[in-house]
């Protein structure tokens, strides 16, 4: 008995003790019902209210963000479409200038050729001269009937002989004339071919122009959709930005690999220039930082080169420079890039020499015989390293293009991601807020279940006091006040 805890009214029987305590506590719980209900409701509101408020605020922010993203995206799309249309017009202008500038000459050539063909055709149309008038005389003579007169017979024979001779001559002349016309027709062929070729050329140029016009039409349709701010245009622009983002990220990752190789090439020889024992941080050598700086300077020069070539548009100030200043800047960045590439090639050579020197030292320390090196075979890696050292800076210069795409598309992708995050957080907070509100209701119901006996007594007492309304309030739930 002495071992039982203080709260155990019935020693050795915890369940019974707890039941007794419960019965004792029940009137007090019943008495405290209203304030406890209020407390639970307040707690639910206290927890759920701010959460719902935060959820509403986040959802509103997400809406604003989406609107802003949409505005930025459409503005970007509009600008991009304008640029594309302008470029298409430039192409058309170039096409017209290149192809149709020579159109008068082409037309003149065509007309000349047609005139020549016509002349030749006219020549072909020239028929042999008609038979002379004496043919009619011959016909009259031929009508003379032979009457056995020798003179007439002789005359006719003579005429026959003469006519045969004349016939042969006329036939020969006729044939000659046809031969000449055939020759003229033969001469037609090159002109026909030339005419055909010229017409095909003109047709091709016209087709090119038609293609460009079709491209302009497509761009114009897209531009109109962007200007009208249609959902389709927004969706297309978002998808395009996402694609650009992933492609640019991939290319940048590849460029980072190139930069790493570049770094490996020049980090060791840089220690020959700035020393190998200086450290910027606990693990970062000054020579490594110097190598990184050289690579970054190369990338920057490449960036300026691309800007001054007007391939990228990251710096508006460069684009607004006067033409001669822009050209000066272009040459300056190119020359600097060239010098840096030369330095890298030299450093790559030095790296090879340093490694060979170190290898020779280690071999002498290990007392092993140095392997006889084949001259041109060992020269291949050296030449390869030098070439790589020279090429990589120029290759890195092109990073500016994916970098621009990455920066431009990152705004859209980042904005879309932020909207999704804000929405998700808003929904989560809303769910949490509702959970706390519902939890307070559940706790109120549980509380009433615990004190169900006093509530039943209360209900019976009230029913006995007001018998008239007993039937009418039969639907009243346990714990509910009338």
């Amino acid at each position: 008995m002495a071992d039982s805890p203080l709260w155990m009214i019935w020693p050795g029987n915890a369940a019974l003790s707890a039941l007794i305590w419960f019965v004792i506590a029940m009137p007090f719980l019943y008495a405290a019902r209203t304030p406890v209900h209020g407390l639970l409701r307040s707690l639910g509101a206290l927890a759920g209210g701010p959460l719902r408020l935060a959820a509403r605020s986040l959802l509103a922010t997400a809406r604003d963000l989406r609107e802003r993203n949409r505005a930025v995206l459409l503005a970007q799309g509009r600008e991009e479409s304008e640029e594309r249309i302008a470029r298409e017009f430039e192409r058309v202008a170039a096409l017209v200038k290149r192809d149709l500038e020579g159109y008068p000459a082409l037309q003149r050539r065509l007309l000349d050729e047609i005139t020549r063909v016509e002349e030749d055709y006219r020549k072909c149309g020239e028929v042999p001269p008609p038979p002379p008038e004496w043919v009619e005389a011959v016909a009259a003579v031929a009508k003379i009937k032979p009457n056995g007169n020798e003179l007439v017979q002789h005359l006719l024979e003579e005429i026959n002989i003469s006519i045969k001779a004349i016939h042969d001559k006329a036939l020969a002349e006729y044939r000659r004339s046809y031969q000449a016309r055939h020759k003229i027709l033969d001469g037609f062929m090159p002109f026909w071919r030339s005419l055909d070729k010229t017409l095909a050329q003109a047709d091709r140029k016209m087709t090119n122009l038609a293609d460009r016009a079709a491209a302009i039409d497509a761009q114009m349709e897209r531009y109109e959709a962007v200007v009208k701010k249609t959902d389709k245009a927004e969706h297309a622009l978002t998808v395009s930005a996402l694609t650009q983002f992933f492609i640019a990220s991939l290319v940048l990752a590849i460029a980072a690999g190139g930069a790493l190789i570049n770094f490996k090439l020049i980090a060791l020889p840089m220690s020959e220039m700035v020393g190998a024992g200086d450290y910027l941080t606990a693990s970062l050598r000054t020579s490594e930082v110097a190598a990184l700086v050289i690579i970054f300077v190369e990338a920057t020069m490449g960036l300026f080169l691309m800007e001054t070539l007007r391939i990228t548009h990251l710096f508006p100030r460069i684009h607004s420079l006067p033409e001669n200043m822009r050209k000066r800047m272009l040459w300056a960045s190119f020359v600097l890039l060239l010098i840096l590439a030369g330095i890298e090639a030299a450093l790559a050579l030095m790296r090879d020499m340093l490694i060979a020197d170190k290898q020779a030292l280690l071999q002498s320390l290990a007392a092993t015989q140095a392997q006889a090196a084949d001259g041109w075979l060992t020269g291949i890696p050296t030449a390869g390293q030098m070439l790589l050292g020279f090429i990589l800076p120029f290759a890195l210069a092109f990073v500016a293009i994916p970098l621009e795409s990455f920066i431009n598309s990152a705004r859209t992708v980042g904005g879309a991601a932020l909207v999704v995050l804000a929405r998700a957080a808003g929904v989560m907070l809303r769910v949490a807020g509702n959970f706390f509100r519902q939890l307070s209701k559940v706790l109120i119901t549980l509380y009433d279940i615990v004190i169900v006996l006093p509530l039943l007594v209360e209900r019976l007492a009230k029913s006995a006091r007001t018998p008239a309304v007993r039937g009418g309030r039969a639907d009243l739930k346990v714990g509910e006040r009338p």
Partner: protein
Amino acid sequence: MRRRTFLLSVPLLGLAQALGCTDPRSHSHAVYLLVDTSGTYAQEVDKAQVIVNYLLGSLQPGDSLAVARVRSRSFSEKDIIAKATFDQRPSQANAQKRLFKDQIAAFTANARGSVNTDITGGLIQGALFLNETGAGKKTILIFSDMQEELDRSTVRSFPIDLKDIRVVAVNVVKLRTDNIDPRRYLGRLEDWQKRVEAAGAREWRVINDLEHLDALLKS
């Protein structure tokens, strides 16, 4: 004019900042190798060449290396056979290493044994050398059987200072008496460990297998 001055000052400021924000702590490693040339251990001196070669192959530009012999009295600069702080430029450092190797080769070819063995004197000299280098990591390698033998007039029975220095005993061969009673060998090593640790050394280590020299410079 003012614009030109500004354009010139930008790279100079960047350079000054880059020079100013370097890590002031020393990252170099200084190693002092004591080579015991006394008594029967003088036969082992050829193996010291192997250790020196390993060190020359492992130490970086900017690191320091000194090799000194242990004789009857070793607390003297005269006992330093060769010392060098390698140049920051790798090519120059390699040239220095070649020269160092030749100096050690000449020493091992003409090494003569001494009567007594003053390891403590060598340790004090080594600690002085290492502290003078200002290196961030300091290591004393003792190529010896760790059997100290001093003449009557030499005084070494006082506490020494080896603060922040790693002490590594290399190729601690067993003496004939150790073979009779191994406790002598173990006791000798234990005594040295206690003494070195009492002197404030950062680490005490024994490496007998010369095939695993990579632990020489690793703490």
